[in-house]
C-alpha cells in the first residue's frame, strides 16, 4: 500500500477554529511563527552548521525549499538551557558533551570515508556517512569513547520528535488530533468526524 498524501494547509486552517483550545493553539502557533534565522547560543557556529547539515539528511525536505521545518535550533536551545528529558543512557556522557563529541565524530567519519569535510560532501556521500554511524561501528577515534549506536538513536529521536511536533509535519501525515473540541464522536474503523482531513 502506498502511503497516503494529504493536502497542505489543513492544520493551519483548523488552528483558527474553536475546535482548538487556547493552550493548544499557543503551542502550535509558536512553532509556525519561529523566525527562520537562528543564532546558535550553545554550539559554535560551525558545529551548529554541521548539525543542520546532518538534520537535513535525516529529514530531507526538498518539498519545502524556502521554509524547511527547523530542527537544529531546538537542540541548541535545549543544550543552552541545560534541559533534560528525564533520563540518559548511562553509556553516554552528559548531553552537551555527547552532541559535541558526536558531531566531531561525524566529521571524522567523513574524513575517513571521503577525506573531506561533511559539509563538502554531496547528498549521497553524506548519507553514506550517516549510514556508517547508524550501523554502530563507524571509523574514527571519537567512537572509541562514544557509543555510536546510542548517540545516533538519541540524536535521531530528538530530531524526529521535533519534526513531528511541527504543524507542517502534522499536515503531512494527516494528523488533526489537536482539533479535539468539543469531542470526537466517530472513533471506530473507517469513521471520521467532519473536520478530519481526507487524502488529497
Amino acid at each position, binding site marked *: 500500500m502506498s502511503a497516503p498524501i494529504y493536502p497542505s494547509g489543513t492544520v493551519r486552517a483548523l488552528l483558527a477554529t474553536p475546535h482548538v483550545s487556547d493552550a493548544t493553539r499557543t503551542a502550535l502557533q509558536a512553532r509556525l511563527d519561529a523566525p527562520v534565522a537562528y543564532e546558535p547560543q550553545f554550539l559554535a557556529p*560551525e558545529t551548529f552548521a554541521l548539525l543542520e547539515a546532518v538534520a537535513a539528511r*535525516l*529529514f530531507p525536505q526538498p518539498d519545502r525549499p524556502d521554509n524547511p521545518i527547523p530542527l537544529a535550533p531546538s537542540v541548541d536551545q535545549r543544550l543552552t538551557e541545560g534541559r533534560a528529558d*528525564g*533520563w540518559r543512557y548511562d553509556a553516554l556522557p552528559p548531553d552537551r558533551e555527547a552532541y559535541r563529541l558526536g558531531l566531531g565524530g561525524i566529521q571524522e567519519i567523513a574524513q575517513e570515508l571521503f577525506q573531506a569535510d561533511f559539509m563538502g560532501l554531496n547528498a549521497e556521500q553524506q548519507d553514506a556517512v550517516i549510514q556508517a554511524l*547508524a550501523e554502530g561501528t563507524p571509523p574514527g577515534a571519537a567512537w572509541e569513547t562514544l557509543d555510536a549506536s546510542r548517540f545516533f538513536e538519541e540524536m535521531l529521536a530528538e530530531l524526529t520528535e521535533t519534526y513531528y511536533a511541527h504543524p507542517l509535519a502534522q499536515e503531512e501525515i494527516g494528523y488533526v488530533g489537536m482539533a*479535539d473540541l468539543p469531542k470526537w464522536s466517530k*472513533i471506530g474503523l473507517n469513521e471520521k468526524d467532519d473536520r478530519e482531513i481526507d487524502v488529497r
Partner: protein
Amino acid sequence: MPDEEIIEEGVINPVQPEVQDPLLRSLLAEEPIPTNTPKEQPQAVEPEADEVDCVVIGLGAGGAPLLARLAQAGLKVVALEAGPWHTPETDFATDEKAQDFLFWNDERLAAGGDPLAMGKNNSGTGVGGSTLHYTAYTPRPLPDDLHVRRDFGQGEDWPVSYEELEPYYNEVERFIGVSGPTPYPWGPARSQGYPLAPLPLNSAAQLMVRGAEKMGIKTSPAANAALSARYYQEGVGWREACTNRGFCQAGCSNGAKSSMDVTFIPLAVKHGADIRPNSFVTEIERDARGYVTGVVYTQNGEQKRQRCRHLFLCGGSVETPRLLLLNELALTSGQVGRNLMAHPGLQVWGTFADEVRPNKGIPGGLISQDTHRPKDADFIGGYLLQSIGVMPVTFAGQVARGRKMWGQPLRDYMRNFNHIAGINILGDCLPHADNFLELADEKDARGLPKPRLHFTAQENEHRMNAHAEKIMRGIWEAAGATDIWSFQRYAHVIGTARMGKSGDDAVVDANGRAFDVPNLYISDNSTFPSALSVNPALTIMALSLRTADKFLESLK
C-alpha cells in the same frame, strides 16, 4: 572541531565530579544558589514549625488516597509535592511537546542491558503525580499474581492476599469512577461490578477484536479510569464524561480521566489537608531513638522544615529509595534499591488498509487475559494483551528508535500514521540481583547524586516476550495488517523498597511500615514484592488506602 572541544574533553569521564553541567558549574562558581545542604547552612532553615500528625511526601497514586483517608480521620496532615498544581483547562494543551512539564525531567541514568527509558515513560511530577499522564488502564491483578513463588518456586509472594485487597479495589473503582465490563471475564467472580459501563472501542480495539476472534483468543473492553458517563465526585462536583480526546498519556483537559487531582486530592482538601506544591524534600530528620521527627524541603527556592509525628514516603520507585539512601534511613535489610523490576511491554505495530486514526478514543480500549497463565508457556507468570492507540510524536520517536528509519523512508512510513494500530503486552517480571537502583557520583542541578537504574531483562522475560510476539503478530496478521514490526520496551519501575514478612529481607511490612523506623511508612510501587501482570496504579491506590487504615488502627 573548534578548540573548546578539547577543553571539554576532560569532562567525559571525570573523577568524582561535583556538578556535571558546565553552565550550572559556572553559575555556581559565580553566584551560589541557595543550597539544600542544611549542614553547611543551618541558619537558612526556618525555626521549627508546629508539629503535625503526618507528612506525606508525593501526591501520586501512592500518596493521594492515604492523604484523604488521614484527613478524613481528623488528623493534621501536610502533603509535600515536588511539582506544581496545574489547572487542566488552561495548562493541558493537546500537544505532546507542550506537556513535557508533567514528567520528572531531572536526569536519571539508565544502565544495564535493557536501559529503562524514564521521563515520559516512567515518572511524573505535579499535584497528582504520574496519574496526571497515566493511560488510566486499571485492570486488577488476578489472585495468583500475588503468589508467583508459591506457584512457580521463584520470585516473591505478597504478604497481603487478594482477599484482603478486594474491598479496597472495590472502593477505589467506585470512588474514582472506573469504566469497565461487568461481569469481568477473567478471574474469580467479583463482589462488585464496575460503576460505569466500558468506554467505546476505538479502531485499534476493533482491529484487535477482529484478529483475536480468528485466533480463538477471548477479548473484552478494558477497565479504564476514565468516565464513560458524568460522575459525581465528592469535593469536586460533577465530572464530565470522556470526549475521546485520546490524549491520556498527557494531562486530561476536562477531568474525565480519574487522576488524583480530580479524585482523592479534592477529598483530602475538603477534609483539611494542607497541600504544598513545588516542595522538594531533601532531608529526613530523626531523634536519638531513630524515629522520624520531621523533614527539610525546598519550596520555591526557600528552605523549610516541617516537624511531624509520622512520615509517609510516596515518591515512587526511584525517588523513594533515593531519599532513603541519601538519608541512610531504613537500610538494615540491605534491600533498599534492590529488586528493581519493570514490566515487559513489547509492542507490535502494523499498517492497515482501513482508516484507523489512532489518536482518538481511550488508548487501551481492549484487553485479553487469556495469556495470564498460558498452557504452552515456557516461562514463569504471564501477561495481558492490550490494544493501543498512539499520538504522532510518541509514535515517530519509537519508529526512529525501534526501526532505525531515517531520511525519506521515515517520512514515507510516517505518512501511514492514520492507518497504524498497535497491540502490546504487560507482563510480570522477576526480581534479579543485577537489577537495582543506586546513587551515582554524578550530581544533579540540586547538587544531589543522580539515581542510576540498572536493568537487564533475564531469561524469563525473554521467553515471555518471544511467546507474546508470536501471538501478537498472529493477531495482527489475522486482522489484515501489513508491515508488522515489534518494539521492545519495559514500562513501570517497580520494587526497590519491598514489603515482606521480616525485616531481614524486606524494607516494610505488609502494612507499609518500615521495619527499622516505627513511624515511617512507604506507600507506592517501590513496596511491590513482585511486579504483577497488570498495570500498577490501581493496586498502588488500593494499598495506599489499606496502609492508611492499618496506620489509623495502630493509633487506637
